[in-house]
């Protein structure tokens, strides 16, 4: 332990306080200072957690799934530490820890649930071996950062190699399922999966490209057969691997999961069918933690304290109905199916980052009876390359059309819609003016706004002003 480690929490908190005061803004800045003066802070602090660390990574759904796992574990009685949305890199975790540790450097939590970006996850596991890893998927996303998706899968392979308890994998993503081979001896592997009936809704990255070229071939007239491209080999493999949790059916805010051969249907607050599959992923990792709890309770001894042993006892007794209840209580995360009331209409904000996410969002929110707007930016956080828009099938919007297209790359989006024969009412690169027209048209009609990451930030800020103006004007 470094001579100055006792002082780290104090220094870190001091920097955090000072950086707030100076409006430094960046939430990672205190983390940077601490990483420099006390490089073992992260490993030391997380290493003391009696139930260890759950690491969540993958291209799509990290934030929502991390939130689900954390929410379910605390619903089942544990004290959970988790990193806030957006700080999914090592330094962000350190900064988040600094806010939570006591001045003696103790973290008052039983378990940590951490969302990490694929590249940062590799850094992280060099310092801290996770007890659980939940690996969701690899999709074409942020390609300018990671190169190719096989490369991204390799990054996640390092996470599987470093996990010493249970690796939970997406059975339906061949690149993720293949990581089972990398789990160390003694580390268990569990899968979450889809019923055959739902597989068509979730084509893997490889299937997607095939589907789109079929679409091109038919000039829009070809039937949507996402599952047609699945290879027999992939299906065969899927048959061989038993899933711990299978997502089998969904309805309006309802989902059915199969656990131990029995189907369990529940109401959910989550929006979008892809989030229900994320819930299956979360269930699988929570089940793994529950299964380990009796052993952890024995191992905890007096040092864990009576209160901890009590919590752990109750947690270990969590049965399937309790787990399903915990799923039903999870609420959507920022920008992941969030509904804001603006100018008298419910406005649904839908974050789109990659072809698969966009496709699943379009499938999850039928456009009929709603107004649609699409906002595409190309800042670094969004990805500079617009090619991905051509891997999304927009023909489901053909009947209703799109009211407004906006963002820096509004014209690229309008061109994409043009080739899919989707009517567009207006194209305006100015987000604020486009949004104003959009939310004030057809009051009461639900609105769907699909946005890239930085576009989402702009839209939220602008909506805040519009909602405020509406409040003042109408005085409701």
């Amino acid at each position: 332990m470094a001579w100055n480690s006792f002082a780290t929490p104090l220094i870190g908190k001091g920097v955090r306080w000072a950086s707030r005061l100076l409006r430094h803004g960046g939430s990672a800045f205190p983390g940077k200072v601490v990483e420099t003066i006390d490089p073992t802070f992260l490993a030391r602090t997380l290493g003391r957690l009696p139930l260890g660390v759950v690491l969540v990574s993958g291209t799509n759904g990290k934030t929502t799934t991390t939130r689900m796992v954390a929410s379910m574990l605390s619903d089942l009685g544990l004290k959970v530490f988790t990193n806030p949305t957006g700080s999914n890199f090592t330094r962000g975790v350190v900064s988040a820890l600094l806010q939570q540790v006591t001045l003696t450097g103790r973290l008052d939590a039983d378990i940590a649930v951490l969302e990490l970006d694929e590249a940062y996850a590799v850094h992280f596991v060099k310092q801290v071996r996770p007890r659980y890893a939940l690996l969701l998927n690899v999709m074409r996303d942020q390609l300018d950062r990671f190169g190719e998706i096989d490369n991204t899968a390799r990054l996640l392979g390092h996470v599987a190699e470093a996990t010493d308890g249970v690796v939970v994998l997406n059975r339906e993503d061949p690149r993720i399922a293949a990581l089972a081979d990398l789990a160390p001896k003694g580390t268990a592997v569990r899968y979450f999966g889809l019923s055959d009936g739902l597989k068509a809704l979730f084509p893997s990255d490889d299937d997607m490209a095939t589907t789109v070229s079929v679409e091109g071939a038919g000039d829009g007239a070809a039937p949507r057969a996402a599952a047609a491209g699945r290879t027999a080999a992939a299906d065969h493999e899927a048959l061989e691997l038993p899933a711990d949790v299978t997502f089998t059916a969904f309805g309006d805010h309802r989902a059915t999961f199969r656990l131990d051969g029995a189907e369990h249907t529940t109401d959910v607050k989550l929006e979008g069918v892809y989030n229900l599959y994320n819930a299956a992923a979360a269930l699988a990792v929570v089940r793994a933690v529950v299964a380990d709890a009796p052993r952890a309770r024995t191992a905890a001894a007096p040092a864990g304290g009576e209160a901890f042993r009590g919590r752990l006892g109750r947690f270990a007794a969590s049965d399937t109905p309790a787990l399903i209840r915990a799923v039903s209580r999870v609420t959507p995360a920022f920008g992941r199916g969030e509904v804001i009331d603006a100018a008298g209409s419910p406005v649904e904000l839908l974050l789109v980052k990659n072809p698969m996410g966009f496709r699943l969002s379009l499938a999850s929110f039928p456009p009929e009876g709603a107004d649609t707007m699409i906002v595409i930016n190309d800042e670094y956080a969004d990805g500079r390359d617009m090619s991905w828009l051509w891997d999304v099938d927009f023909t489901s919007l053909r009947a209703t059309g799109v009211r407004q297209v906006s963002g820096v790359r509004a014209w690229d989006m309008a061109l994409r819609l043009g080739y899919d024969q989707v009517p567009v009412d207006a194209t305006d690169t100015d987000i604020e003016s486009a949004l104003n027209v959009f939310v004030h048209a057809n009051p009461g009609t639900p609105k769907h706004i699909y946005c890239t990451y930085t576009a989402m930030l702009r839209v939220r800020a602008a909506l805040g002003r519009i909602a405020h103006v509406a409040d003042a004007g109408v005085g409701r």
Partner: protein
Amino acid sequence: MAKTIDVMSLYPKDMNIYGDSGNVLTVTRRLALYGYEPRVTAYNQGDPWPEHIDMVLGGGGQDTGQKKIIDDFFTRADALAALAESGTPMLMICGMYQLFGEYFETVDGTRLDGIGVIPAHTIGRDVRMIGNLVEHSDEFGDVIGYENHSGQTFLRAGVGVRPLGRVDQEGRGNNGEDHTEGARVHNVIGTYMHGSLLPKNPAIADFLIRTAAENRYGEFGTADQTDAQAAELARLDKVAAEARAVAAGRPR
């Protein structure tokens, strides 16, 4: 009865990345709007070779994709070379551009053969050339797209292969050194430009279409085109012009 144009999409299952299918969609839609009947055949390894081919479109892929197609690709090398020499229009992006060249030398010095339709070779590098790119072409005006490759491609001098266009800065284009991007030989275009390429560069899409129609029917006639189709094509080109103007001003 509209005239048919047979378009072959080459290895769309394994050589199709960063929106390459957007090129197929663009050709298909524009053909229809010119009053032709596009018929697209997806050719993947092991498939029967189509009877009639008026145009060939190929895309990029990952190393694993290239490995999957390579054996089949060599069995089709003569057929593809014959099509190219007889003037069939072709667009080969990124990975297929490299495979249409003479050879690819990997970072560790291993030589992998290409089919030699384009007199060029590629050297694997650790540094990736990536970002928005505008190149200048005498034939098509400014070509606007997004390059994303780590191989450095060099055109062979003195054998009639020309670059598709010229780039202003070092560190971009074919090899980052000689200010060239892409290749032109017969009616074949090789390029590193994604974006997708054809939607924002309708001049290239129309070159492929016009050449295909002239080869098959002796002329590029638009007698079957309706006024509504002509109007829709003009509208798409207006939107493309706006998208080009924005894209040209974006950071790398």
